[in-house]
């Protein structure tokens, strides 16, 4: 571009980011109504927030409430905005940052398909047992394992299965809850 033609300024002032991003799990209590998921996802998209994992399901049928668990990676400043922007949505009752509140339980389920024979097949079986994975489907040349646990456990199980004939993986995304007697 001709130097002369380069824009020489802007109408906006930008400040470089100085904080480091962190991974947080948010639990969002919402009215179970049409479009609610689109509202949540749309908010993340429109404001440039990340979604690493997202799970939704109705949790209190009589009250018409659903729980949405979102894992996001953001700087502390952006995290605060994410929480407050979510709470601005009319059908959102409450947002809890389970990571901030510490001591929360996080579980995920994965279905892992492995196809192999001979020693790798036997090795896959032994490891599945060590990880307490269930066999939910089996053929002479394949297994489908069901494994539940912390995401890090599932990550490592999947990594081990790669050389043993991993075909594909499906993960549910995270379900998380605070420990102790209090509810949301």
């Amino acid at each position, binding site marked *: 571009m001709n130097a*002369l*033609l*380069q*824009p*020489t*300024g*802007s*109408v*906006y*002032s*930008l*400040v470089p980011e100085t904080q480091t991003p962190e991974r947080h799990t948010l639990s969002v209590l919402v*009215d179970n109504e*049409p*479009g609610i998921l*689109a*509202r949540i996802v*749309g*908010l993340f998209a*429109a404001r440039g927030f990340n979604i690493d994992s997202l799970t939704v399901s109705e949790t209190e049928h009589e009250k018409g409430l659903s729980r949405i668990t979102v894992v996001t990676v953001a700087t502390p*400043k952006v995290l*605060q*905005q994410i929480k*407050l*922007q979510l*709470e*601005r*949505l*009319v*059908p959102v*009752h409450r947002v809890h940052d389970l990571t901030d509140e510490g001591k929360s339980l996080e579980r995920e389920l994965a279905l892992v398909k492995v196809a192999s024979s001979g020693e790798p097949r036997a090795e896959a079986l032994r490891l599945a047992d060590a990880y307490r994975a269930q066999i939910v489907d089996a053929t002479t040349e394949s297994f489908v394992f069901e494994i539940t646990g912390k995401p890090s456990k599932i990550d490592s199980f999947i990594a081990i299965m790669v050389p043993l004939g991993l075909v594909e993986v499906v993960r549910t995304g995270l379900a998380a809850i605070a420990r102790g007697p209090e509810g949301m």
Partner: protein
Amino acid sequence: MPQQMTGAEMVVEALKDQGVTDIFGYPGGAVLPMYDAIFQQDKVRHILVRHEQGATHMAEGYARSTGKVGVVLVTSGPGATNAVTGLTDALMDSIPIVCLTGQVATPLIGSDAFQECDTVGITRSCTKHNYLVKNVADLPRILHEAFYIARSGRPGPVLIDIPKDVQFAMGTYYGPTEIEATRHKSYRPQLEGDIRLIEAAVDMMLRAERPVFYTGGGVINAGPEASQHLRELAELTGFPVTSTLMGLGAFPGSSPQWLGMLGMHGSYQANMAMHDCDLMINLGARFDDRITGRIDAFSPQSRKIHVDIDPSSINKNIVIDLPIVGDVGHVLKEMVRIWRSKTNQPRTEALAPWWAEIETWRAKNSFGFANSSSVIKPQYAIQRLYEATKGRDVYVTTEVGQHQMWAAQHFPFDLPNRWMTSGGLGTMGYGLPAAIGVQVAHPEALVIDIAGEASVQMTMQEMSTAVQYGLPVKIFILNNERMGMVRQWQELLHGGRYAHSYSESLPDFVKLAEAYGGHGIKCDNPADLDAAIREMIDSPKPVLFDCLVEKHENCLPMIPSGKPHNEMILPDFAGDVGAVIDAKGRELV
């Protein structure tokens, strides 16, 4: 008493029960049952617009000038998409609107039926909340809930999409007092501020030596009482007051404590006070980028109090020392009470050095301009307009551009709800329909749109609406034959390469006014201006006033990009304006 009726009749019934007397709309296939219901009653007046965007801005003008909820009724498909700009505008400026849209019948939804569009999908991000009504049994609740959501907390637009079969279906209507869920079942914005925080704020205020009140649109939204409390608090404390574009009128422009608007085109004294203060008290404003300038150099020595009804506005752009979530009216009232309980003396002596400094800044006369006897300066035109309308019951709307900023600088207000402008979205074409909406609400008042010749052409067709309903709005066009604000930025940032920023083939505005059945006036001589303005005010018709002004005037003062508040360009700046932006500013995209 619960009553049986059709969905369309419920809509009209709910409007009446919500105290709605005027709505702005445009018919079409998917809303015909509602139009039929409107036809058969005379409590709710329908103003037929010429384009749905016009309806939304009229509803905004109506809402902003009355504090009531503005109502829009449009058809499915193109009717709904044409309303999107106004909904977004209302969302950005926190204006309460209920927009009713027709939709194709429920069995047809998703089939790409004629004039079908995904209205709730399209408007999800430009409304505060929206609904698709699939069952007539839900309609009364949703209608009342929509009004509640639109006006409570931080106000905003709410849209209700009503399929045609739901409009025809019979159901039971409940009024707002007969039904439990007329408020939303969980949406309860926090109105009262935490009293301990308010006490802490007053303590900080009592110790401040260089304080400033930075007020915003929230004070207007909190109702006239909030403006009253602000005036009281300012008087008690003796602190200087500045305001954002959206907050003008909450504090009297005639008060000696008034510093003028702040921000990019705000006064030197307001911006310097913001920069050098030791205590900033933000009342219902949101640290918008037009206000802060360079964030990392924003008011470096101050402690900051922020009162806002929307918790997400706090710490979004600027780090706050003392946040208070609540309705600014409530909080101001408490601040007044607590201040009174501690002292009844303004701290005149403690503040004297600060005021002395402010007066030296004020002495720069940053809104000053070189007047001319041969050509009308736009600032002069606004000053004359102000003088000619002083003491009258006057409301002002604007379009977007230089004229908007000059209006904010040179047309002071002593009352809230008198100034309607598109601040957050900056929507050209807002002012003319907004003025019509204001005039509908205030038939006897003098309603003026301070316009630019480019902006006003975006919604010019609403002149026809004004004529149809005998709404004598005055469209005062500062015609510089340029998109002046764009031209100014091109001069500043793009080496004076004026790409597509002049107004070619302009219509003859006088003939245009006459073609619509209004009155046209043209003026290009400063000596004739006062008489021409008088003619405009005296006309019983809608007027297009073509005021030919200086074409190359820059809107000053100005905080250039990459610069903090204390490095404004002042009007007496003699050098090349383009050279003021340094290497740092150039790095910004």
